[in-house]
Each structure stands twice: as structure tokens, then as C-alpha cells.
């Protein structure tokens, strides 16, 4: 009996209910037959016989129905009642009753899973707690690039600066393919675990990189600094200095010779040509000296721009007003006149503290600080510096700084007194401004002819942070460090796989004939989307895009003009996706298009969200991307569905939400997912054969 019960429990709910009612029908028929047989045997053709038969049949039918009701009541109605009671208890009282309804198929485990999820604290991803986020921010903001690689050179960590420095850097990528591996190999060979060594290498794009490599037990950490610009700048500076020396040397030599002639008592008096030569060389010398002086000024300004210091003008002024307020000297902040957003090479609090100390000194002498102001200014001489080839960029000296002014009422401040206050350190070159309007203060109280006084401090602009075309946050997957390659792909857990989610927009729905117009992809690793690791390109299909296709994705012929062709775009995508499994919704469509564009099929591990959905929800469900997104509560980006990146984002979220549901069904590894996907081969064939209006994900 228990064996039969176990066998029945293994059947689906619908089949079991069907069996119950089939049994009921059989019982009814059997009862009727029994009644007729008994009636015929005892009553013959008399009415009493049929009455007897009817009574017997009725009793049998009632007995059968009672049996069916008892079964239904025990295994369905009471089970549902118990289940709803348990859910209510869990929902309203937090009671932890069990969910038992073994005849109701997956309903009890599903209810138990839902209740457990509702009762559990919100899931916290491993990398999302406060301290981790703080650490991520610190590491992302490091002014040097940092890459951690495994023993096989696979990138397991990088920060934003490293991504700017090394084109194509991505988790799981082979670092040795992205920078010149020779110096790294040599450094690894000459150092033991834990030791640090310096090296220089070059990125694939030719940037000169100074690096420090620390070897770990498995793999290494490498800190990278782009020195190509610094080196180029030093070389340019040396060349400029040599040119200036030469420019000074020539007229100096000529003047020296001419002066000796003039001093020589035996020499004839200078004729017109000699006098003209003297004047010419003197002018040349003057011009060369002017150039030298301008270069020195540019260097001075550059030296004032301390790397790493960047305070917006508004923040600086607010810090100064607060610092003066703290020492009992409240001041008015004058309108910023466009300087609020200027980044200055200043530590706001330190500078505010020093200026507040000057304010106190002013007040001690009866000069009460009344206002502060900040105005942008263009530094003089920048045009000369630019003319001589100083490159604009991080260290270009021509950028504008700002002038900070601290105004007071009362007596003038003699320059000698100010210089005495500043002491030998001479931090900036402050000066005193005469005849300043004194705001609301009475002119009678002010000391200058034109009003009050102001202490003026020129502030250098901040050095712009090096920005790549796209700032990328921190990315890491330290499981990459632990992986033994070549790993047995079939055994790899789905949430530990390095995946690239792909979607293509096309000229039509026939992958064998139509062409790409857009490719987008993003990387998913360790069960989360890697921010910043995205691939997106329009593709010039080399043919007109039909109006029907344009109506779907909105990509016009004009939009793809100048975009790479299918072969180049597909090759770039393959570079991006190297080493990763491809995830796509109706993957054969996208893989066929990309493979055809590059001239050879993509032979990569593939996970298809259509088939994974079928494994979770059953083949009879609808598996379009929209239906899946709605079912899994994945937000669909407004206006971006049917653009490749919009679809990629939805597909990636769907994939990530399917993983735990697959796991609940015992599908945890890539191999198990492949087995589950293979159960639905017809699904993709049917999907790709359906009407374009509702085909695949569209």
C-alpha cells in the first residue's frame, strides 16, 4: 500500500486528480452494473426487480461518491485548508508551522519557499554590505590602477583607473593579452611570494606603464600608473628648455662679440651696420628672455596645482565663512560670479583655517573682516604657454583659477605687515587690494580712497582628473582566482559562471538572410551584473534597413551611417565575450547572426533563457521576454525595449532571477542546465517559426 502511495505521490497533480475521477466513474459504472445484475437475477422483468436494482445502484453510487469525497476531502480540501491556515499563521503571526500537502504536488514546497523568503530578512548580496561598499569606493577611487590576476593571468579584480589605462580590461580576461607580458613574466620569475618588484610595460594601445608587482601564492597584484604623458611632458620640457637656451645663446654671443669690438680702442668707430646689428641682437635677446620668463611663469603656476587637490569654489567659500564664524568673525559671502563650479587646487578646510587665522590678525588690528568673495580669472600668459606647445590636459598651465578676496573695514594693511604675518613659508602670493567697494559698510569707516580693503589670494585650478571615455567602477570576481583551468564546464555552478548576455537588432527576422544593425552585451559574473563592462555598437548592415524593422527598433539608415560593418562589429563582440558563456533569449537567432557576420560559427557555451524558462515554468507557458519579465517582476526600461542594450538588461535580470528557481528544481550546474534545455528542442524551433509579430522575444 505504501508502495502504491509513493508511486501516486510521484505523479503530477492533474494526473492524480484525473485518476481520482476516473476511479469515480469506474465505481459508478460498476455500481450500476451490479444493481442491474442483482435486479435481473432476483426480480426478473418485474418492477420490484428494478426498484431493487435502483436501490442497490443508488447505494453503490452513494458509497462511491462518499469514498471519492473522503479522498478529495482528505487529500485536497483538507490539505488546502491546512495550507491556507499555515500561510495565514505565517503571514499574520509569524508562526512557523509546516506546510504539508503531499497530494498537491509542488504547491506545499512552493508555499514553504515563499513563506521562508517573506520571513527572511531582505537578501543581502555578499558584496553589498556597508563595509564592502565603503571598501569598493576607496579602491575605485585610488589614483592608481590596480589589477589582481590569477596564476593563469585571468583578471579577478580591477579598479576604474586600471580600466582607463588598459583597453579591453574585463573580469576573466587574460591580462597578458592586454599588456606586454614580457616584463610581468620576468618580474614573476625574479620575485617570490609576497615580494614586490617594479617594472615598466606597455598597454596594447602603446601607453607606457610603470608598475609595481606583488606576487601572491596564486597569481599577483599589479599597481599601474600611466607614465606615458609624464614622460612625454618631461621630454617636451627638456626640448623646450634646450630651445630657449639656444635662443638666448645666439644673441648673447653676437652681443658679446660686438661689445668687445666697441671696447677695443684700436677698432674703428661703429658704423651703421654695426649699430643695426647691435640693436637687432638686443631685440633678439629681449624676445628670448621674454620667452624664458613666460616658461618660468607657466612652471610656477603648474607647481601651484597640487595633484589630487580639487575643491569646488563654492565649497571653499562656505568652509572659509564657517571658519571665520567659528572664531567670532561672521562675514557675508558675496555672489560667486561663476566661480562656484571652478575646481581649485586647495584643501578647503586647511585653507579656510589659514585664512581665518589671517582674519583674526586683521581683527586684532581693528580691521574687521566683513565679506569674502571668489571670482574666476584667466591666468595671464597662458596663451604664450600654449603657443610653445604645452599640451592641454591634466597639466596644462593655461586653465583659469580664481581670486579669493577677504574684505574688511577699517585701516589699510601695510604690505610689510602682511609679509610679516605670512612668514618665511610664503604659501601663496597674497596681496592687498586698494579702493574696494565695501558692500553695505559705510564708506566713512573704510580706510581707502575708494572704499575698503581686501586681502587677495590667487588660487590655482585643480589638475583635472584623468578621465577615460567611460568611467568604470570597481569590478571583481575572486572566484576566478580559485578556479582551476581548464575547469570542467559541466560542473560549474550557474551563479559562478562568467557570462556575457547578448542581444542583436537586425534588418529582419531571418537569421540566415538578415543582417545585424546593433549588438549589445553586458557581463554577468558571480551571479551579478558587472557595472561598466558593457559592449554596445551600432552596425552598418551594408543594405537599407526595412521600414518594418525600423518600426521595431527605431534604428534608421542614417543612424548606422559610419558605424562598423557586421564583420568588424562581430569581431569586437567576440573579443569582449572571450572566455565567457553566452546568455541570450532565443540564442540560436543571435548566435547565427553573429557567427555569419564573422564568417565562422561561435563555438561557445550557451544558456538560452527561453529554454531555462521552460525548465522552470513548463513548456506550456509563454516564454517571450516580455512575459518572462512580467512574471519575474523585472522592470522593463521605458522606451529601450527592442534596442539591443535594453533587451540585454532585461535578459540579464531574467537570467539572474531564474538561477535560484532552477536551483530549487535541482538544476545548479551548467551541465544540468544543458540537460534541462535539451528537453525542449522543439520549443526554439517553434519559436523561430512563428509569426514575426509575436515571434521570439519581440
Amino acid at each position, binding site marked *: 500500500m505504501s508502495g502504491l502511495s509513493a508511486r501516486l505521490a510521484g505523479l503530477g497533480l492533474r494526473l492524480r486528480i484525473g485518476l481520482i475521477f476516473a476511479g469515480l466513474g469506474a465505481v459508478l459504472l460498476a455500481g450500476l452494473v451490479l444493481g442491474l445484475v442483482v435486479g435481473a437475477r432476483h426480480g426478473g422483468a418485474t418492477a420490484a426487480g428494478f426498484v431493487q436494482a435502483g436501490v442497490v445502484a443508488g447505494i453503490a453510487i452513494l458509497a462511491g461518491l462518499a469514498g471519492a469525497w473522503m479522498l478529495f476531502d482528505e487529500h485536497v480540501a483538507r490539505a488546502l485548508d491546512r495550507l491556507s491556515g499555515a500561510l495565514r499563521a505565517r503571514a499574520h503571526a509569524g508562526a512557523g508551522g509546516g506546510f504539508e500537502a503531499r497530494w498537491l504536488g509542488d504547491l506545499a514546497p512552493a508555499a514553504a519557499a515563499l513563506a521562508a523568503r517573506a520571513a527572511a530578512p531582505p537578501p543581502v548580496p555578499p558584496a553589498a554590505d556597508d563595509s564592502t561598499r565603503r571598501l569598493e569606493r576607496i579602491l575605485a577611487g585610488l589614483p592608481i590602477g590596480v589589477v589582481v590576476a590569477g596564476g593563469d593571468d585571468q583578471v579577478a579584480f580591477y579598479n576604474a583607473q586600471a580600466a582607463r589605462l588598459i583597453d579591453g580590461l574585463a573580469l576573466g580576461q587574460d591580462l597578458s593579452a592586454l599588456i606586454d607580458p614580457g616584463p610581468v613574466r620576468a618580474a614573476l620569475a625574479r620575485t617570490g611570494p609576497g615580494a614586490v618588484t617594479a617594472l615598466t610595460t606597455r598597454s596594447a594601445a602603446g601607453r607606457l606603464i610603470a608598475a609595481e608587482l606583488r606576487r601572491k601564492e596564486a597569481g599577483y597584484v599589479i599597481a599601474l600608473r600611466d607614465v606615458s604623458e609624464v614622460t612625454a611632458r618631461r621630454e617636451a620640457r627638456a626640448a623646450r628648455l634646450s630651445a630657449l637656451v639656444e635662443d638666448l645663446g645666439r644673441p648673447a654671443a653676437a652681443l658679446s662679440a660686438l661689445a668687445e669690438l666697441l671696447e677695443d680702442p684700436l677698432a674703428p668707430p661703429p658704423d651703421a651696420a654695426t649699430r643695426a646689428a647691435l640693436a637687432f641682437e638686443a631685440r633678439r635677446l629681449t624676445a628670448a628672455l*621674454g620667452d624664458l620668463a613666460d616658461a618660468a611663469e607657466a612652471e610656477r603656476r603648474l607647481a601651484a596645482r597640487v595633484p589630487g587637490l580639487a575643491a569646488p569654489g563654492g565649497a571653499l567659500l562656505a568652509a572659509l565663512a564657517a571658519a571665520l564664524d567659528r572664531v567670532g568673525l561672521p562675514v557675508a559671502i558675496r555672489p560667486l560670479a561663476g566661480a562656484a563650479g571652478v575646481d581649485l587646487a586647495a584643501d578647503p578646510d586647511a585653507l579656510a583655517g589659514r585664512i581665518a587665522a589671517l582674519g583674526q590678525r586683521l581683527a586684532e588690528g581693528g580691521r574687521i573682516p566683513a565679506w569674502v568673495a571668489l571670482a574666476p580669472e584667466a591666468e595671464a600668459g597662458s596663451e604664450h604657454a600654449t603657443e610653445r606647445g604645452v599640451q592641454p590636459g591634466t597639466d596644462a598651465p593655461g586653465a583659469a583659477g580664481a581670486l579669493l578676496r577677504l574684505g574688511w573695514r577699517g585701516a589699510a594693511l601695510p*604690505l610689510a605687515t602682511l609679509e610679516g604675518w605670512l612668514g618665511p613659508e610664503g604659501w601663496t*602670493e597674497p596681496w592687498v587690494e*586698494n579702493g574696494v567697494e565695501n558692500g553695505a559698510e559705510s564708506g566713512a569707516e573704510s580706510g581707502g580712497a575708494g572704499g575698503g580693503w581686501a586681502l587677495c589670494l*590667487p588660487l590655482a585650478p585643480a589638475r583635472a582628473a584623468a578621465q577615460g571615455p567611460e568611467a568604470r567602477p570597481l569590478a571583481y570576481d575572486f572566484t576566478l582566482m580559485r578556479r582551476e583551468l581548464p575547469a570542467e564546464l559541466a560542473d560549474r555552478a550557474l551563479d559562478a559562471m562568467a557570462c556575457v548576455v547578448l542581444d542583436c537588432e537586425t534588418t529582419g527576422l531571418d537569421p540566415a538572410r538578415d543582417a545585424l544593425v546593433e549588438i549589445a552585451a553586458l557581463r554577468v559574473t558571480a551571479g551579478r551584473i558587472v557595472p561598466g563592462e558593457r559592449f554596445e555598437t551600432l552596425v552598418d548592415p551594408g543594405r537599407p534597413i526595412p521600414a518594418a524593422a525600423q518600426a521595431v527598433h527605431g534604428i534608421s539608415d542614417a543612424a548606422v551611417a559610419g558605424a562598423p560593418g557586421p564583420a568588424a562589429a562581430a569581431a569586437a563582440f567576440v573579443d569582449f565575450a572571450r572566455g565567457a558563456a553566452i546568455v541570450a533569449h532565443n540564442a540560436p537567432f543571435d548566435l547565427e547572426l553573429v557567427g555569419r557576420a564573422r564568417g565562422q560559427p561561435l563555438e561557445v557555451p550557451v544558456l538560452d533563457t527561453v529554454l531555462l524558462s521552460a525548465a522552470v515554468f513548463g513548456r506550456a507557458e509563454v516564454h517571450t521576454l516580455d512575459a518572462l519579465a512580467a512574471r519575474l517582476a523585472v522592470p522593463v526600461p521605458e522606451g529601450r525595449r527592442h534596442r539591443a542594450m535594453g533587451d540585454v538588461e532585461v535578459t540579464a535580470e531574467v537570467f539572474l532571477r531564474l538561477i535560484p528557481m532552477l536551483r530549487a528544481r535541482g538544476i545548479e550546474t551548467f551541465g544540468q542546465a544543458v540537460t534541462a534545455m535539451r528537453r525542449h528542442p522543439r520549443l526554439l524551433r517553434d519559436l523561430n517559426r512563428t509569426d514575426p509579430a509575436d515571434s521570439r522575444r519581440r
Partner: protein
Amino acid sequence: MAEPHRHHAAPPLVLIVEDEDNIAAALSYLMTREGLRHERVADGQAALDRIRALRPEVVLLDVMLPGLSGFEICQQLRMDPAYDAVRLLMMTARGAGAERRKGLALGADGFIAKPFQLAELRDEIRRLLPPGGGHPLGGAG
């Protein structure tokens, strides 16, 4: 050479404040050639005294001076409205942008960067002199 009380008919007076003798000699030569009266002092405090005594139309004022600096002279003069008419032409080092801004804030009327061409200096003095006045450079402003 110079008179404390100017006559309208007399050429304008330029006070040369320069401690380098050779530069001062060249400047004196230029003033003579341009028909301007001129006097030279080589010390900061002496310069301030002579400006107060002579009230020249233009002071050619070097920044680096023994005693008071050119900036201090400028500051002290501009604190006294009695000397508003005295035009201060400061001679700054080429490439020292901060010196120009400092002088401007203190009330200087013009700048000329050393080393300079005499022609540049003549143009700058011409700009600062009051228009007309019977002097050889007058009328240009």
C-alpha cells in the same frame, strides 16, 4: 632740475625710480629725447619723498628697490587722494603675472615688463600723460 610747482607751459615731469644705473641712464636718455623733464631716484623711501614733494605727472616705478618696494610706494600713494593725479607706471619682471595683478590691485596705472623696448615705454608714457598740456607727447591720449 624739476620744480615743485608746475607751470602749464612746462613739459611734464617724469620721475624715474630705478636702482640699476644703466637702465636709469637709458630711461633718462629716452626722456630727454622725448622732450620730457625727468629726475631719477634709486631708493624706495627717497622716491616716496620726492613724489610727495614734486607730484610728477608720471612715475616710472621699479618693483624691486632698496628700502620700500614699488608696491609699498604704490599702496601709500593710493591711500592719499592728494596723489590721485600722479600716474604710476610699474616696471615688473617679464612673466611675473602675480606682480601685475598685485600692482593693479594697489592702484597702479600701467605696467611694462622688463626687458622692454624703449618704443614700448614711450607709448605707455604717452598713454598715461594728460591730453594736451603743451608737452611733446601730449595729445595722444
